[in-house]
C-alpha cells in the first residue's frame, strides 16, 4: 500500500533521536493512513517507546519531520497541545489516577475544556454521564466504576487506560504494549476491543506478543535499532530473513 504524504494522518520522515550519543531512533520514517491500524513490533530497545515519545511531544527529535493530519508540526508542540489536537496515548506501564475512582478517571479523560480557569465552575452534563457509562460497558468495568483505580488488577488498569483514551476521543491512538501481563483470554478480548476501536479511529499498537499481533490481522512494521527493518503482513515479516535474524540470531 502506498500513501501520499499529504493524505497521511501521521507522517514521520528521517526522525533521529540520540541519548548521550546513543541513537534510539536512527532516521526513522513511517506513514500511517487515516483509519489504519498498524502494529509495531521489534526487540527490546528497538525504539518503539521513543517513537511514541516523539509523536506525543515528550521527546524532541534531533532531526526529522513529524507531521499530524498533514499540517501540524508535532516537533514544535508540547504534550498538552498534541493531546488536544487529537493524539491519545497509553503508556507501556499502565498509568491511571490511583486515588480517583474508575469513573472519575474516565471523567477527567473525557474530551472538553481543559483550562484551569474554567475547571472550578465545571458541571457534568447528562451526555457526559451517558458517555462514561457506555465506555464502562465497553471496557467491562461497570461493576468497578466506584472503586479506586489504584485497587484494580493490572489487566483492569490496562483496560481503564484504554477507556481513558476512548473518552479523550482522539483521532489517533498510540497504544504501547496493551496486553503485557494479561491472560490469554484477556489478550484475545483486548485484540477484539482494539479492532472495534479501529472502526472509528486510527490506531498504532506496539506489542511483543506475536499471537496478539496475529489476532489483530493488520499491517506490521518491524523496528530495529531505531529504524524500520521490514513492513508487511505478519506472515511476510516473519518469513523475512533479517527479521528472523534479529529476533532469534545474534
Amino acid at each position: 500500500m502506498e500513501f501520499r504524504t499529504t493524505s497521511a494522518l501521521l507522517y514521520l520522515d528521517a526522525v533521529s533521536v540520540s541519548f548521550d550519543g546513543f541513537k534510539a531512533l536512527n532516521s526513522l520514517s513511517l506513514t500511517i493512513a487515516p483509519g489504519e491500524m498498524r502494529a509495531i513490533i521489534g526487540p527490546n530497545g528497538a525504539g518503539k517507546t521513543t517513537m511514541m515519545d516523539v509523536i506525543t511531544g515528550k521527546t524532541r527529535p534531533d532531526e526529522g519531520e513529524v507531521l499530524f493530519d498533514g499540517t501540524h508540526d508535532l516537533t514544535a508542540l508540547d504534550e498538552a497541545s498534541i493531546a488536544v489536537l487529537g493524539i491519545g496515548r497509553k503508556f507501556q506501564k499502565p498509568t491511571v489516577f490511583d486515588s480517583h475512582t474508575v469513573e472519575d478517571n474516565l471523567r477527567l479523560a473525557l474530551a472538553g475544556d481543559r483550562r484551569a480557569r474554567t475547571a472550578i465552575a465545571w458541571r457534568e452534563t447528562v451526555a457526559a454521564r451517558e458517555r462514561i457509562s457506555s465506555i464502562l460497558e465497553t471496557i467491562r468495568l461497570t461493576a468497578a466504576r466506584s472503586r479506586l483505580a489504584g485497587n484494580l488488577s493490572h489487566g483492569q488498569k490496562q483496560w481503564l487506560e484504554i477507556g481513558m483514551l476512548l473518552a479523550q476521543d482522539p483521532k489517533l491512538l498510540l497504544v504501547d504494549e496493551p496486553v503485557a501481563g494479561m491472560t490469554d483470554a484477556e489478550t484475545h478480548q483486548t485484540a477484539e476491543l482494539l479492532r472495534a476501536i479501529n472502526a472509528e479511529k486510527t490506531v498504532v499498537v506496539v506489542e511483543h506478543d506475536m499471537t496478539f499481533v496475529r489476532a489483530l490481522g493488520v499491517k506490521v512494521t518491524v523496528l530495529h535499532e531505531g529504524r524500520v527493518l521490514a513492513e508487511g503482513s505478519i506472515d511476510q515479516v516473519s518469513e523475512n530473513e533479517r527479521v528472523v535474524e534479529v529476533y532469534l540470531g545474534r
Partner: protein
Amino acid sequence: MTARPLDRGTLVFLGLVAAAAIVVPALNLALPESSPLHVPTYLVSLFGKYVCFALLALSIDLIWGYCGILSLGHGAFFALGGYAMGMYLMRQIGGRGVYGNPLLPDFMVFLNWKELPLAWWGFSSFPYAMLMVLAVPGLLALVFGWFAFRSRVTGVYFSIITQAMTFALMLAFFRNDFGFGGNNGLTDFKDILGFNVQADGTRAALFAISCVALMLGYLVCRVLVASKFGMVLIAVRDAEARARFLGYRVESYKLATFVISACMAGVAGALYVPQVGIINPGEFSPANSIEAVIWVAVGGRGTLAGAVVGALLVNYAKTSFTSGPLAPYWLFLLGGLFVGVTLWLPRGIVGTVQHWRARRREVAPDASGPAEGAPDGAAQKPLAAE
C-alpha cells in the same frame, strides 16, 4: 465526582471555628478576672497565634496534600505578609517613636536616612497595606512558580529551591540597608486602625478576625478541591505525565494553586504580626517552613481539617514544652514526632480516622449496592469474565 463544597465535615469545622471566634473573646471580655472561666488576654493572643499557624498549615496542605508539591518555603510567604502588616503598623506609630520623627520609623532615623524609601510608600494606608499582604507573596509565588513549573522542576528539587528562596530572603532582610529594620525587624507597634494593639478589645478582635480568616481560607480550599479543579490537582499528584497526555496544562494548575496558597500564607502572617507584636527576619528561617510542613504531616495531608488539627496540636505541645525544663529538647521531640508519624501514621491523625471510617463503611453490609465500592477481594475480574 465533584463534591459539594459545604459537606457535613466542612459545616462542622466552620461551626467549631465560629464558636471559638465568639466564645474566647466573650470569656476574655465579659467575665471578671476573678472568674475561673476568664480567659486572660495573653492566652487570647496565644490562641490567635495558633489560628494563624493553622491558616499557614492549610495553605501548605492545599499545594502539598492535593497537588503533591512539597513547598519548603511557605514560611517566606507568611513572613512577607507579616512584613506588609508590620510596615503599616510602623507607619501608624508616626511621631510617637523614640526619635519623634513623624515620617520615618525609628530605625531609619537611626540609620541617618533622610527620606522614606520607595518600598515604604503607601503603607500608611490600611487598604494599600492589605493589598500588599496578598500581592507581595502572590507575585513572588507567581514569578517563582512560573519559572519552576515551566522548567518542570519537581519533587525534591522544588523543595530545595523553595528552601533556598526563603534562606535568601532571610539574608536580605537581615541587612540594615535592605530597609526593613535589619535583624531587629519591625516592632513597638502602637495602634491598628486607631485601636491600641495592646488593648484587650483589640486582642480579642484580632483573635476573632483570625478565626474568620481561617474559615474563609478553609472555604476557598473546599471550593477548589471539591471542583473539577481539585480532581485535576489529585490527578497531577498521582500521575503528572498522564494528566499532560490527556491535554491538561499541568503547569497552569500548579501555578494557580501555588499563588492562591501563597496569598493564604501571607494573610496568616499579616494577622500573626499584630498579635505577637513583632516581625523579624527569623520568620524567614528555613526551619520555620519545615516545621509548618510537619504540622500538616502530623494532622494528615490532603484532608484540610488535618492541617488545622496538626498545627494546633503541635503548637500547643511546643508551648507546653518550651515553657518547661525540657525546653532545649523541643527540636529533638519535633524531629522524633515527624519520624514517628512518617513511620507509624503516614496518613496523619485526621487521615487515619477518615481511613478507618471509610473502611467501616465499606465492610458494613447494607452501606451500598453491589455495584458500589465492593471490597477488593470480592470484586470479580471483569476482563476474565465470560
